[in-house]
């Protein structure tokens, strides 16, 4: 019997281990991971493909991390969960029993049914093994790719492929790229930079089937778009979205929606069973509801909250929201919350655009409280605004200053500066 069992050893799992050890120095921790080395930065697989990073650079903790934290790391896949026995079954048939369990199994790429998807040269882009296969394919001479989906992962793989000299066509069902993060103006600015780097962008369409090469049916040779056009390519990368890996709790009492349902302590509907990270549906403080938000910083924070509660220290998850920063194609971007809301009379939108040097800033307010923002080009002060958003600070008195080029802490009223504990 291990006091704590954690399945999944990436952002959320590591966050939980660190939090548990802050409270409980000795309680036995067993971490189950199907990946041999899971303490690497998943977002950095893009730099791995482009050649900027190797596995050593990607490690978010040193190799002694598990040992230093007195963790038994079991590199096997968990295949079953027996809630009444308090045990997790591993692929080799052994059982690990727990007092407290954390499911930090993350997500898996969503791959829609497509004719030809079994062909050699079709990839997803989620883990180091995907990145290694893709890098090998490029090393072997593949130089044309179709990326399906122009979201965060689609743009990150496109950036890497482009740096390797691969000619990429992005195919996106929505009418613009990064549609979950950017409004039309911001998306257009980024699109121009992506196209300038030689990428072909096709919006409003998807891929209906993948065809083989004329001389080898089993190898990717082209894709057929939904409106009928054909794009020749050597590889197809499917980057449409992430689905929570809930398979361990399927058929159990643990309540799921899209992801595993959790409360503010990250506990599931079953006592002593917790979930965090991409697999869970945690609180979004802007939408005021729980939902899946597959983001690294949130996975870490959720894992930490779960860890504290598992170790007996009450902790409440303050919530996150859709929040991403991007570095791709040379344009720094920060987009948080309702950055691109549907027209709504209750929302006030402030914009500052400087088209020449691609600076675009947009704030979305509701009752004088920030609920969304997009910063493009000049992002260094974005965190101050995120603070105002997270703490629901009424900005009416200093609204005019928010988007000025020289906006900073000195523009905040003294009461806010005092709250921020500046001195």
């Amino acid at each position, binding site marked *: 019997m291990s006091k704590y069992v954690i399945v999944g050893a990436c952002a959320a799992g590591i966050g939980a281990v660190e939090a548990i050890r802050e409270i409980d120095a000795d309680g036995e921790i067993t971490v189950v991971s199907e990946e041999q080395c899971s303490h690497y930065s998943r977002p950095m697989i893009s*730099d791995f493909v482009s050649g900027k990073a190797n596995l050593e650079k990607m490690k978010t903790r040193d190799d002694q991390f598990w040992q230093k934290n007195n963790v038994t790391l079991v590199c096997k896949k968990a295949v079953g969960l027996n809630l009444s026995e308090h045990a997790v079954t591993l692929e080799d048939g052994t059982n690990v029993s727990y007092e407290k369990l954390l499911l930090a199994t993350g997500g898996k790429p969503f791959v829609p049914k497509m004719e030809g998807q079994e062909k050699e040269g079709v990839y997803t882009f989620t883990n180091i093994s995907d990145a290694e296969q893709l890098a090998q394919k490029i090393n072997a001479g593949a130089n044309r790719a179709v990326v399906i989906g122009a979201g965060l992962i689609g743009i990150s793989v496109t950036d890497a492929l482009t740096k390797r000299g691969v000619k990429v066509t992005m195919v996106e069902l929505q009418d613009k790229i990064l549609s979950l993060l950017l409004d039309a103006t911001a998306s257009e600015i980024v699109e121009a930079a992506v196209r300038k780097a030689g990428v072909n962008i096709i919006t409003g369409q998807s891929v209906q089937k993948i065809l083989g090469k004329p001389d080898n049916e089993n190898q990717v040779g082209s894709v057929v778009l939904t409106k009928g056009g054909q794009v020749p390519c050597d590889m197809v990368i499917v980057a449409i979205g992430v689905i929570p890996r809930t398979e361990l709790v399927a058929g159990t009492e643990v309540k799921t929606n899209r992801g595993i349902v959790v409360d503010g302590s990250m506990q599931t509907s079953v006592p002593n069973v917790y979930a965090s990270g991409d697999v869970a549906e945690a609180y979004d403080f802007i939408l005021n509801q729980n939902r899946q938000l597959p983001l690294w910083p949130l996975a870490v924070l959720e894992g930490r909250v779960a860890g504290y509660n598992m170790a007996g220290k009450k902790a409440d998850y303050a919530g996150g929201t859709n929040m991403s920063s991007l*570095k791709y194609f040379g344009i720094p971007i920060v987009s948080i919350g309702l950055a691109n809301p549907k027209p709504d009379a209750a929302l006030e939108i402030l914009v500052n655009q400087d088209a020449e040097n691609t600076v675009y800033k947009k704030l979305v307010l509701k009752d004088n409280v920030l609920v969304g923002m997009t910063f493009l080009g000049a*992002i260094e002060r*974005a965190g101050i605004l*995120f603070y105002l958003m997270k703490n629901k600070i009424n900005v009416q008195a200093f609204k005019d200053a928010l988007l000025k080029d020289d906006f900073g*802490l000195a523009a905040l009223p003294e009461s806010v500066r005092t709250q921020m*504990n500046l001195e």
Partner: protein
Amino acid sequence: MRKIVAKQEHCIGCGICEVHCITQHSKSKDIIKAYNRERPRPISRVRLELNKPVSFAIQCRHCNDAPCASACLTGAMHKDEKTGLVTHNPEKCMGCWTCVMVCPYGAIKIDKEGHVVTKCDQCADLDTPACVANCPNGALECVEVES
């Protein structure tokens, strides 16, 4: 743990702290060379906040809960176990700007040339950080706090 605090009432907004921060983080450690010759010019990690009549200098607060460190996608930004200082390792940084997004003080600077971030390291190899030592008005001060 040491913290740098700003005395707003003493700050005259001269920006000398920035000059000395740049010099201290330059290769030559020489004011003139750091400004005129070193390219890219080193980045000041302290920022003069000016909104007359308010002025004060701000740098990384080395927060206890360090939002930047828990958000960092790579482990580059981390709390040093020994010193308690929030420390950045440029070798690990992928320049994803996630820490920039979550720092409430806007204290993280983007190094455009290096495609990484940079921030106050409290001049680890000096007894007194350069900004504190060189403020002509005593508007920056080091205090010891519990970490």
